[in-house]
């Protein structure tokens, strides 16, 4: 845990010092380009690498009634028979975290009694984090588009509708910190989760907190010169990079941590973003008895044939009056 925290603090310091000692072009222009390339290249490579391994068996985890008899209502989404149903199941999984919504926690009470409680906090905060992060990501397109489309302005308006402070506080900023805080607190204080947590579980949390924190810091507190930042970001997207003077160091910390995240992403557990789409227990229909699934490496059939079986047990079978393909006489004659 501490190593991850120190690593992120170190990254922040590097950015800070770098910005202060003349490496602004490197951090503000070169690194972001490199990071985007690594991110895209790495992401594609990972997906291709996974996809290279075939799916030999169709093994959906069925979360409800199968389609069998006409008068039995099947669970079309939790146990989908059709491709449409499977797409629906995946959408529920990806957009609403269906499986996590089922979460329970168990307790053994006196009696003994094993009791199950609904436990949706993880679902709630995980969903909150992902959607806030998505909205924040979308909001950032104001820096890459000129003129700023109406939809973006509308999102910003709604996000800031509580009209607190100047510049207006975005709800997503608060919520994303709260959600990350919950996810971190869970790792630290839940015995089970703490026990399984690795440095690579804490690192992305701290990195995201650093990223979000530096963003909040420069928007609400040091109030960096937004106009100059936009000049830089527009330069980046138009492939015509310029480095305006006078952008605060907080910005460089922010963009440096973002670059780190982009580089780290494809090689970490954050790839669950792509991997969830490839999970064979979710992305396949439960119709294996109706439609044959082909295994590309299906080995040739090797089994003990009936003939071999009868050869061993022929006499016993005849004595017991069981039908045989070859009688003892026929078998003897064939030898």
């Amino acid at each position: 845990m501490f190593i991850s925290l120190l690593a992120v603090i170190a990254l922040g310091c590097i950015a800070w010092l770098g910005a202060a000692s003349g490496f602004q072009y490197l951090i503000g222009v070169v690194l972001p380009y490199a990071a985007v390339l690594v991110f895209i290249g790495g992401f594609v490579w990972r997906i291709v690498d996974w996809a290279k391994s075939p799916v030999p068996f169709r093994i959906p985890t069925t979360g409800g009634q199968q389609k069998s008899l006409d008068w039995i209502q099947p669970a079309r989404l939790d146990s989908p028979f059709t491709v449409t149903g499977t797409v629906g199941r995946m959408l529920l999984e990806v957009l609403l975290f269906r499986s996590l919504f089922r979460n329970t926690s168990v307790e053994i009470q006196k009696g003994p009694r094993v009791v199950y409680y609904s436990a949706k906090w993880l679902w709630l905060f995980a969903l909150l984090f992902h959607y806030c992060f998505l909205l924040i990501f979308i909001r950032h397109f104001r820096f890459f588009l000129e003129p700023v489309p109406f939809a973006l302005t509308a999102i910003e308006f709604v996000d800031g509708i509580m009209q607190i402070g100047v510049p207006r506080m975005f709800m997503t900023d608060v919520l994303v910190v709260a959600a990350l805080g919950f996810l971190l607190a869970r790792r630290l204080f839940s015995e089970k989760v703490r026990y399984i947590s690795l440095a690579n579980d804490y690192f992305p949390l701290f990195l995201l907190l650093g990223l979000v924190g530096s963003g909040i810091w420069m928007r609400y507190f040091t109030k960096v010169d937004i106009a100059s930042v936009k000049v830089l970001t527009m330069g980046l997207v138009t492939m015509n990079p310029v480095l305006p003077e006078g952008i605060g160091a907080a910005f460089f910390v922010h963009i440096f941590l973002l670059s780190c995240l982009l580089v780290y992403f494809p090689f970490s557990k954050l790839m669950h973003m792509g991997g969830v789409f490839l999970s064979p227990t979710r992305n396949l229909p439960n119709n294996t008895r109706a439609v044959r699934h082909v295994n590309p490496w299906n080995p040739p059939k090797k089994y003990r044939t009936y003939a071999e079986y009868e050869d061993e047990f022929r006499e016993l079978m005849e004595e017991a009056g069981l039908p045989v393909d070859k009688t003892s006489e026929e078998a003897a004659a064939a030898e």
Partner: protein
Amino acid sequence: MSKLPTPDKLIATIPAFPMEGWMDTKPEFKPGTWCYPAKVDNMTALGMPNPHEWSADQEDWNLPENWEEIIYEGLKARLAKHRSLKVFMDICVRCGACADKCHFFIGTGDPKNMPVLRAELLRSVYRRDFTTAGKLLGKLAGARKLDKDVIKEWFYYFYQCTECRRCSLFCPYGIDTAEITAIARELLHELGLGIHWIMEPVFNCNRTGNHLGIQPHAFKEIVEFLCEDIETVTGIKINPPFNEKGHEIVFITPSGDVFADPGIYTFMGYLMLFHEIGLDYTLSTYASEGGNFGSFTTFDMAKKLNAKMYAEAERLGSKWILGGECGHMWRVVHQYMDTFNGPTPPKMETPKSPITGTVFKNAASTKMVHIAEFTADLIKHNKLRLDPSRNDHLTVTFHDSCNPARGMGLLEEPRYVLKNVCNNYFDMPENTIREQTFCCGGGSGLNTDEIMEIRMRGGLPRGNALRYVQQKHGVNTMACICAIDRATLPPLANYWAPGVTVYGTHELVANALVMRGEQKRTMDLRQEELPGMEDE
């Protein structure tokens, strides 16, 4: 066999989390926690790699000299063959949603029985050998070196997973521990490490057609003996066909139903049902096993044992296969059989009930129907005369087997059947049934007596849910649709909910079934007096 603690003691001895990290703890091979090793003879006869003498409680497991290379190459090959493995190795975020979903974790408190950590046992080795971060950062990136203790740990924990897939239901990415366990067991088998309770049935099944090693003549004798019992109870003499060509249907069920109490009553139930509706079927001694312990060994072994079903249907010229009550058998049939050994023989046809005319379109490709689907259809079409009051002395609940629940979705069919043959039916609490069902504690070949304590610990959530309905509704009967359940649930019920008896679903069907020409029933299939039916 080690002595079993009392239920209270068992719960009191669930330990707190250890202080040391999980990479620094080692399993202790105490009696009652590990399965006996497979016989060298069986392993050799089946052509398994590196058969050798070893035992889990010994220091030296006599691993082959190049064992590290075998694991490395074995894992590499499997990563290339199974996208599931590769994706599951990479995308876990350790959110912990799976942690308390595992019956073995609930009952043992052992953190390595949390599905996430069970997978990390393999993942840590994967990271070290197959990821750059793991190679560079080692333990910091959750990677560790493969050593002999890791192999021992794998054996300990991958044989404390019943491949029930309950964790997979709750995982936001659908990571399936059954898949990871199956592949880890394959790797252990590469080193010649298998367990007796699985390899003996596999050997038998290959040779005699069934797990119990019943030879053809004995199989026939046992079934005929059961038919005598049917005659005693109903006055009707049934002569089931064996290995006969030209029948429409081959019926295949786990051999445990032919051999072991209380499965035999379920088997009698099938025969009575088929007789009553005049089904054109045959039994097979060659394919006399529905279950598939090969599926607890390797994918190839599962395929090898399963191949007999289609081969026999083809030889006998049958149109389709009807399958009996069994859990893992139906995982294999539903999700693997057609892929393993299909396409089906050319003369097989999409199953159609000869009684109701219902076409089982959901089985159009495998051409195999579950008996609960078949019977539910019969009842729905009013083709059976039923007297559920014969089961009135029973208050029934239903145990969803893991595999039909989460690897098939067979949830309503057995309930429909049960509610039509029993008047008193109550489900267990919702977090313990249907797709959330809990394992009997003995699935995936772990129904062996030497690990009874582990089984009872794993059976805690199921047993406790049973006790709950026993106390609340007076449940005295647990119905199931699985031969392993019929073997594992009686000791579980005895331990966690004494007074509950385990029945196969078709035993209850046959008790209620009014057969043409039967004598007045005064006994159930177990030849116990039916209360209220003694004299009228």
